């Protein structure tokens, strides 16, 4: 471990390794081993990123947070604007109960404490698409706070994340607020065009703790949040339509040192962009700090064309939002079974316990069930839970043939059927290989009537339009699994005989030549032999011959 003095010295010398080593070696005699110091220096040079997210999720509701106008995404410009949304003088906000319910439900799904009394505030700034000059939000006393989201970080394409890892990130708060309108800048004519259709749509702003340290973790969190919100149907999470938008706060620091200055990348509208923007930002912070620069607390946007983040000029000046309580809305009161007023009908007020009871099975629970009850791998569970259509197919297969082992079904589904779909560029919902027939194939495999190689071929054939029942196909093509040991023995002997070079090389200690022998048997037997049995016999043969 580095002593405090050493750490201090490092910092003052800005990572000049040579000097540091010499200095420390002479000045600090109790630091005995030179390699220890170098090790410490290396560690100190390891930047650690700290990432927190602010996620804006549009609430799935027919009308806006404080007005009766509609919320559909594709409607004609300025066609879903109530007087209140245009800030016509004298109009007042009327809170939409459905939106509050969505907020409470989401809070519960994210393991938050629900505040029985929450309040609305005005956040002031001038912008053309903010007609009132302020946004109504919940800054001081949000509807929910102090929650947690649990998810698995797993990305086979990212070297650091090939093994699924469970993670838990704190939710600082969940607040209800209004969305703004949209501005369209017509640079040629020096005009700004404003569309207020989005103005006043209900948002949930979900603020996470800065518990993440790389872009994959952030991306996994967003993915999980999408699954949760879709499961409880409080947001459609269409990032491409802006229903779910992510702001990422990024800073870097060295272990043991105070947090660095952060920058905020706003309005990321795809999970891929979340990861890319964070990676870019981390690299940028490193570059700046290592060249002796200073990070400026600023707001940036992500340019997906260049893959870079750029400073948002109009928000460069530090804003003082001059928060003030919204005087036109009384405090928002929700109840639970213990204090639900007897004078009120159940439709008149919100009961937390009623909503909690209505929570569906959430993604994490679904995965847990798949892994622990059905014996699937974590990767397969992630895959299933992330795709409702796939899950539905999987369940239909198991429903058609309840005797099937889930693990076997998922394995055939993931390797064979998904490969076919991928090749044909089709979605699982477009797959016309019926789950019932798929189940028949799996049954043959499970009964060891066919090999995995045959299974693959069978699925391909049926996927491509073969309408015969799988049992008949096997009959026609003579694809029965060869169980006669003598027959396999014959194929193996032939393989050894015909491939003396491979046998020799294998004996010389090159195991990869063994596969050539297996391949030979497989080819000769039309893939109908069990590779395990083949391997066993081949090994025996080779050792006997020697």
């Amino acid at each position, binding site marked *: 471990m580095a002593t405090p003095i050493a750490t201090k010295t490092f910092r003052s010398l800005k990572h000049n390794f040579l000097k540091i080593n010499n200095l420390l070696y002479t000045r600090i005699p109790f630091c005995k081993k030179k390699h220890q110091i170098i090790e410490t220096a290396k560690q100190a040079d390891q930047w650690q990123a700290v990432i927190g997210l602010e996620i804006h999720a549009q609430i799935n509701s027919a009308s806006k947070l404080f007005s009766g106008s509609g919320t559909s995404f594709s409607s004609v410009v300025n066609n879903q604007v109530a007087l209140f949304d245009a800030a016509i003088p004298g109009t007042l906000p009327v809170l939409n109960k459905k939106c509050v319910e969505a907020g409470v439900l989401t809070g519960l799904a994210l393991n938050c404490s629900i505040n029985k009394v929450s309040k609305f505030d005005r956040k002031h700034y*001038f912008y053309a698409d903010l007609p009132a000059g302020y946004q109504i939000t919940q800054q001081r006393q949000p509807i929910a706070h102090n929650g947690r989201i649990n998810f698995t970080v797993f990305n086979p394409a990212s070297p650091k994340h090939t093994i699924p890892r469970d993670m838990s990130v704190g939710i600082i708060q969940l607040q209800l607020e209004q969305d703004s309108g949209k501005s369209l800048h017509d640079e040629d004519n020096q005009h700004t065009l404003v569309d207020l259709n989005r103005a006043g749509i209900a948002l949930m702003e979900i603020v996470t703790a800065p518990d993440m340290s790389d872009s994959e973790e952030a991306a996994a969190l967003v993915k999980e949040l999408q699954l949760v919100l879709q499961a409880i149907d409080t947001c459609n999470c269409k990032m491409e339509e802006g229903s779910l938008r992510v702001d990422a706060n990024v800073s870097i620091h060295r272990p043991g040192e105070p947090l660095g200055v952060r920058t905020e990348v706003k309005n990321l509208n795809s999970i891929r962009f979340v990861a890319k923007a964070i990676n870019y930002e981390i690299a940028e912070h490193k570059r700046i700090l290592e060249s002796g620069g200073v990070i400026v607390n600023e707001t940036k946007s992500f340019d997906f064309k260049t893959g870079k983040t750029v400073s948002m000029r109009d928000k460069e000046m530090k804003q003082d939002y*001059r928060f*003030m309580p919204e005087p036109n809305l009384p405090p928002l009161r929700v109840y639970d079974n213990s204090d639900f007023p007897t004078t009120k009908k159940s439709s008149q007020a919100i009961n937390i316990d009623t909503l909690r009871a209505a929570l569906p099975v959430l993604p994490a629970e679904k995965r847990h069930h798949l892994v622990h009850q059905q014996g699937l791998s974590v990767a397969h569970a992630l895959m299933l839970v992330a795709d409702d259509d796939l899950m539905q197919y999987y369940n239909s297969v198991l429903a058609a043939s309840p005797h099937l082992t889930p693990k076997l079904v998922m394995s055939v589904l993931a390797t064979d059927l998904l490969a076919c779909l991928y090749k044909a560029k089709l979605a699982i919902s477009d797959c016309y290989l019926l789950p019932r027939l798929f189940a028949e194939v799996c049954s043959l495999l499970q009964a060891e009537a066919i090999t995995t190689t045959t299974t693959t071929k069978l699925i391909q054939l049926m996927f491509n339009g073969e309408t015969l029942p799988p049992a008949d196909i096997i009959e026609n093509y003579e694809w029965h699994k060869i169980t006669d040991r003598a027959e396999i023995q014959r194929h193996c002997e032939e393989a050894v005989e015909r491939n003396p070079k491979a046998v020799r090389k294998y004996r010389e200690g090159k195991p990869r030549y063994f596969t050539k022998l297996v391949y030979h048997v497989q080819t000769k037997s039309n893939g109908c032999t069990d590779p395990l049995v083949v391997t066993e016999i081949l090994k025996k043969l080779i050792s006997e011959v020697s």
Partner: protein
Amino acid sequence: MVLLTAREVALRLRNGSLSSTDVVSQCIERSRLARVLNAFITHTHESAMSRAAEADRRISAGQPLSQLDGIPVAFKDNFCTKGVKTSCGSRMLRNFYPPYSATVVQRLAGKGTVMMGKTNMDEFAMGSGSVDSIYGPSRNPWSRSVRYRERRLGDAEPLRVQATSGQVSYSLPSSTEKQKTCEDDETLSDEDDWLIAGGSSGGSAVAVATGASFIALGSDTGGSVRNPASYCGVFGYKPTYGLVSRHGLIPLVNSMDAPSIFARSTDDLAAALEIVAGHDIRDSTTVREQYKPFSLPDDLSVKDLHVGIPTEYHAPGLSQGMLDAWSWVADLFDNAGAKVSRVSLPHTQYSIVCYSVLCACEVASNMARYDGIQFGHRSEQGSSTHALYAATRHEGFNDVVRGRIFAGNYFLLKRNYEKYFVKAQQVRQLIAEDYRHVFSSGVNVLLTPTTFGDAPSYRSFIGADNRTRSMQEDVFTQPANMAGIPAVSVPVMLSERGLPLGLQLMADNFHDKQLLTCAKWLESQVNFPRFDPVTDS
């Protein structure tokens, strides 16, 4: 006829001795005669006549919509009226024709009342004189009171010169003399020798006082209805906050604004309240349960009443006349068997300074929407969006409004929020606590002056700036808005100068019936003269 109460007229409409068309035409004539008083920004005489005709058909068919069917009403120009200009007395909204009507406007229309027009006010209701309107000041009709004029003739030199130069009657006895009178009034205005109406709802007070309307709505945030009611000799009633919907009322201070009523009797106040009060789904701050419609009893007694006299209201600057009126009325209560005792409201003295912070904050926030983009005035200049905002807001608001916006934004800065806004909120709680304490100790109503004295002259009023005036004028009325409690100004007598003096009654939250019943008793005792400031001379 025009100085009858709405209830009295309503009876005549029912028995057929009057028609709504007659009543409305006479009100139109009255507002023409009193044109120089500048009570109205917009007249809606044409639609009023047709609505009166409709009312007559309903009444003669025996199917009136309410007891006020066919009765003329007027609205302060900060209540949105669909298709009728709603300017708030400001350049900013000079071209604003709302696409909807305020709840109170809808409710009154739905019960058959006839809108006569939109009344003058201080710009965005910021003021206490109705002198800061782009349409010019409203004048107090009592400027024409003979007694006042006689008093004034005995005044200092410059006034005498002016007065002698205008050797005429200031009354408007008939339309034949109208031309002449208008010229006289020009002279009068040049000399600034007239009385202010009070404000900010001065136009509505003048409309009721002159017979141009029987009932008028104003908004009362710090006394804006009670103050002009006192100066113009009419009743001005601020209901409990939350009783009447603010939907469609262009706000000054949302948490204190109360749509309020001017009338010539307490029964008229109650009749109008019955129509406008009650829960409104469009205003979340209106109460669901607390309000039950009521009318006032005719057999009145104050025997079981406990009247509190807050000692703090005996403030420096209180005129002798007002003090006399106050003690006279306290004695009336006492003699009638009410228990009258001194009470203390120690924190109410901080109400004004507290109000100046809270008002500025809400103003800064509420005014943020006036950027010239969606509605209202838009500047011709503007090289960028923010330059357009700046020019629009500079041109659209007067310096009073701009001043409050600046102050409010300052108070709301992150570094100042705790120091000003939070402190002011705390003081507000203490003020409300004072009232709770007094009312829970058994006091039913509080009796105080409404204003320091009778109406000041324009000349003396504009001697101080708007802010100073607002702070002076609202001292007695403002605390009720802080606590949300109902309050009514009752005209009780004429001052030495022959001008009206109003006393204020306040009651606990949602005790509006008790308050108005008490006011009705007082009304029956004081016999305030039914004086017509337009024609009586």
